[in-house]
């Protein structure tokens, strides 16, 4: 591709001191990754492999020393509205209503009120929360809370959306619905997404490219392209799609390797 990538990570290596022993932990080793516009990249790997560390570095929540990380050509030096994050826990504010939460990013950018309410309405419709505008988060189910979190991130119009195991805390049935919906939303908004998960199925279902991480220190083991058009990615069709099942089985095998080799040690 001749176009410049939206997110570029070059030779990124990261250590951090362990909270209890103080020994430095080697979390990431020589990561090279590019995410292009309108691409959905899923990172999958065994737990504790440094996926979340990588996402925190990209989000600007964790300072890094070795390597380069840029978004739209600008070095990452702290959190900013160009990189929206959907966290695993519900990070929406309990003292703000649904619409106030969704419009929060725009409010922080000091946009006029009429503009905010127009955009908020648009995203409330998009995530299917019409009628819940004035509810407080504690009145919503886990799935609905996560929809608010996604809408809040998208409404601020980031260059890239980072998602850190966003559906790990909801029940299986809701997860499938949310995955289908995320697909639809990404199609509609044409957003660039970096998605972190430990679920192989989820990665294969959502990602244009799946990046498999090795166990710690986290390294990119393989990259698998999944060439299924986004509009064909619906759960009821996917389970019989050979491209999906093959990719899923391949990723599963690679992740298994990491987990079992870990056990042998």
């Amino acid at each position, binding site marked *: 591709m001749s176009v410049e990538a939206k997110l570029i990570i070059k030779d990124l290596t990261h250590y951090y001191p362990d909270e209890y*022993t103080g*020994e*430095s932990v080697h979390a990431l080793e020589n990561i090279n990754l590019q995410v292009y516009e309108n691409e959905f990249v899923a990172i999958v790997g065994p737990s504790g492999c440094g996926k979340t560390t990588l996402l925190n570095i990209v989000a600007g929540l964790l300072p890094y020393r070795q390597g380069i990380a840029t978004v739209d050509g600008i070095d990452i030096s702290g959190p900013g509205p160009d990189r929206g994050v959907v966290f695993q826990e519900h990070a929406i504010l309990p003292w703000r209503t649904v619409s106030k939460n969704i419009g929060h990013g725009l409010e922080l950018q000091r946009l006029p009120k009429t503009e905010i309410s127009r955009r908020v309405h648009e995203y409330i419709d998009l995530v299917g929360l019409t009628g819940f505008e004035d509810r407080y988060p504690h009145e919503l189910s886990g799935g609905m809370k996560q929809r608010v979190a996604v809408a809040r991130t998208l409404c601020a119009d980031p260059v890239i959306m980072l998602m850190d195991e966003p559906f790990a805390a909801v029940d299986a049935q809701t997860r499938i619905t949310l995955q289908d919906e995320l697909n639809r939303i990404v199609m509609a908004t044409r957003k660039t997404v970096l998605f972190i998960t430990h679920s192989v199925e989820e990665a294969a279902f959502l990602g244009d490219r799946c990046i498999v991480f090795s166990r710690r220190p986290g390294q990119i083991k393989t990259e698998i392209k999944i060439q299924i058009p986004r509009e064909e990615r619906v759960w009821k069709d996917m389970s019989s799609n050979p491209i999906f099942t093959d990719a899923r089985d391949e990723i599963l095998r690679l992740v298994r390797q990491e987990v079992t080799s870990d056990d042998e040690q």
Partner: protein
Amino acid sequence: MTSNNNVVSFRHKLKKFTTDGAGRLIIFLIGSIILWAFISLFIIERPDRYLPSPMAVILSSLDMLYKGSLISFYSDTLGRLVFGGIVGILIGIPIGLALGLNRTIADMFYPLMNFFQSVSGIAIFPVVVIWFGNSDTTVMIVILYTSFFPIAFNVLSGVRSVPVRYIQAARTLGASRLQIIRDVLLPGAMPSIAVGTRLSVGFAWRAVIAGEMLAGRPGLGNMIFSGQELDNTAQILLGMVMIGVTWIVLDHYLLRPLEADTIERWGLVQR
């Protein structure tokens, strides 16, 4: 690589020492004493009157120790606290139990108790003085009055918080009313009793100081008050430090562990 690791772990150990409980407390204590000495020696005019230096306070304590008054004041105050606290709790528990067991009694006396609780022990002091004069009895009544309410209210809510299922279960096993109280309600209310005990002792501590001050009975409260009258500010500061430290020690090493242990042991406090 190993040396690097050693440096990291040493720095971490240092960081751990400076951010952890004991290390932090030591640093805090030293820091605040230095700050106090600095303000006293270089900033304040007439420090002997407005803020004597830590050294002056230590000298004053040595002087009082030598004369024996410090220990006698301290033991007077502690004696009042222990006696008043224990008696207050012993009165409070059965009354709280009675209120918790019978809804009619509770509905009847709750508003009255609530009213008298808000009449603080300090406010009734002038009334008690009219009745008993500036005597030890007055101080003791004020202490009992303040320590009674927290424990009574906590026992009440503790008994109420025992799940009805437990009582029903005991009843189906053929337990009598007395057995239910002994085997279900009292153990179920234990965590609340512990919480109430801590609150009661805390309230009693304040009441002891205030009562001694107002009634002029010997003790820490009177020590700081007479320090003001005698223009001996070092004595006031010494008394204040002793009051604060005594409470911290009492709370952190006796009452809190007691509370935590009870809650853990009788652990049904998952409300």
